[in-house]
């Protein structure tokens, strides 16, 4: 499969990938390297993992990172309650010592978290490690170890080696600099806001019912809006919401009714000051230019 085939296959799943992204994905698949995607919020970084798992027809395992994420939530945890119950039951049955230990430290009592689950699948899944920049640096270091060896050692149970190598996709919003070590392990692609033509293709793939003229107006409007000095720049998801809202209201022309346009802007503008900045006049002007 060349990257062009991959691009077409992703297109079939409703994901329009740029050439850069398609090549990087193809390399990540063939070289077995994790792929690190960086970019502003709402450019479709998470979505690529979903589309890829659909193309490859495998499971998508997602690990959402956050500050304070630790091994217990990311890798594995013993099921303490079950262990305690089992110990109770064992003492009533008169079973003691080694037998109990063997029982409570077996795979049955292990709660699999995303990382462990990802390496113990039958078929290679897509492992999405979302917003890695939100996790602490300690976790990043641990993740490196898992990503390079694809094995996890559990003191009570021994080392669990990967049955399959997952396809790993990491995303980052760039809220902090990631460590050099992590960047070195990964292939890298910066996902920018799409070009006009790409965004039109995305809109067409996701909302086929939008007619061509309105679609061009919507994309032109959102692209112009991104150039404005906003606190929160609207992403692709917002653009699709905007299109859906316009469809729902049965609007065929953006410039037709400024009041309705203003009311649908809630799908694009997400802070008070942004709303105050894009007044009906400004919105009308942008819509006029986009048309």
């Amino acid at each position, binding site marked *: 499969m*060349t*990257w062009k085939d991959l691009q077409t296959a992703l297109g079939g799943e409703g994901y329009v990938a740029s*050439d*850069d992204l398609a*090549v*990087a994905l*193809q*390399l*990540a698949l*063939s*070289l077995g*390297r994790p*792929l*690190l995607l*960086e970019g502003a919020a709402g450019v479709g970084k998470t979505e690529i993992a979903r589309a890829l798992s659909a193309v490859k027809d495998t499971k998508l395992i997602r690990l959402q990172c956050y500050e*304070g994420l630790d091994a217990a939530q990311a890798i594995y945890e013993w099921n*303490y309650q079950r*262990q*305690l119950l089992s*110990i109770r039951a064992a003492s009533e049955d008169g079973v003691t010592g080694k037998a109990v230990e063997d029982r409570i430290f077996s795979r049955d009592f292990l709660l699999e978290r995303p990382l462990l689950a990802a390496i113990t699948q039958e078929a290679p899944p897509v492992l999405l490690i979302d917003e890695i920049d939100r996790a602490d*640096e300690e976790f990043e270091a641990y993740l490196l170890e898992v990503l390079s060896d694809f094995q996890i050692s559990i003191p009570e149970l021994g080392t669990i080696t990967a049955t399959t190598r997952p396809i790993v996709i990491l995303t980052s*919003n*760039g*809220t*902090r*600099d*990631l460590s*050099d070590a992590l*960047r*070195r392990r*990964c*292939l*890298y*692609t*910066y996902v920018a806001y799409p070009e006009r033509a790409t965004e039109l293709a995305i809109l067409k793939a996701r909302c086929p019912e939008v007619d061509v003229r309105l679609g061009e107006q919507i994309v032109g409007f959102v692209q112009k809006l991104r150039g404005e*000095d906003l*606190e929160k720049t609207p992403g692709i998801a917002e653009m699709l919401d905007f299109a859906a809202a316009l469809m729902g209201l049965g609007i065929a022309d953006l410039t037709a009714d400024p009041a309705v346009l203003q009311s649908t802007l809630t799908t694009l503008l997400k802070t008070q000051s942004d709303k105050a900045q894009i007044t009906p006049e400004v919105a009308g002007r942008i819509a006029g230019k986009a048309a």
Partner: protein
Amino acid sequence: MSRVTKFAARDPGPSARIVGFIAHLRENGLRLGVAEADLAMSALVEIDAIQPGDSRRALRAVCTGCKEEAERFDDLFDSYWMDMGRVRQKVTPSLSNAVNDGVHSSSDATGEHTGSTGSATAPDGQEGAADSDGTGKLIASENRNLNRSDLRDLVRPEEIAEAEDVARQIGAALRDKRSRRRVAARKGDRLHFRKTIRSSLATGGEPLRLLRKRRPDRTRKIVALCDVSGSMSLYARVFLAFLAGLMRADTAADAYLFHTRLVRITEALRDKDAMRAIGRLSLMADGFGGGSKIGPSLMRFADTYAKRFVDGRSVVLILSDGYDTEPPAMIAAALEKLRKRGCKVIWLNPLKGWADYAPIAEGMAAALPYLDTFKAANTLADLAALEHDLVSL
């Protein structure tokens, strides 16, 4: 791509060229090892390497690691592969002046662009020789002209070492006390039930040892913005040493310079060799000692980098005298925008140490309402003394 590569007939083959390309990138500041050369080779095998576009994309995915590098990659790729096969002259890296030579010979037509994104390549722009204009005159006239000077003359290695200690202390003083989640701690305020139960397994289910947890202090991220305009050149030595020390002491810190424009210097200052870092810096700080545009620089920071790097756990440290050539309202607007991100803003003004200083400079007066702390700092000792003030933040 109409341009073609013409390597000499004695060229040893593709692998040597790839190794040469990796070396080329490395000399231009990308951190690549032997493993990357290997990976680049295997990547080219996987795709149709005859297509320049495909090779470019593949090598970009392999060789770059952050947005800035990805943006520079195209120029670096062109200068190696598309320059009619002319490979750059060999550069022998030495500590004295080689860093500058190395990057100069490779900087191409778009050198100016790469310079402004915080890279090691920077053109020797002529506009840098501007006189100190506007409000910077008062001090600049008492001081030697620092335009286009090498910053390495200014900063001594031992000062950086000293600054490193100061920066480390300040970093330790800046602790965020707010934290919702509790972690295990020997002297915690609450019982850690899960751990207690877990350890009670060892004593037959009797919780003999009570384990505790508490809310941890989290480190704050320091973002330092240093004014290096003409009026500040007297103090630049201290502040640059401080920045270099800060970057070495705290891996999460972030640093910027501004005079008439803003430059991110975090990557350059991370260089293992402190003096080489300062050398890379002087290439970027083109226009050092010139005029100052504090308002626009802060605004640019608030609009771009702050969105990525500043959050509620950040402390923004502004080192400036507040003499701005632009309208003061701009400073106020920029600081207001910054404050909205939830960070603390500290302004260190070297002039505040003067006996009868009052913040009458318009820019400074406009900034005052948005500052959490406004202090004097002229020397490293002053910076060290800040520690106590910062604890109370």
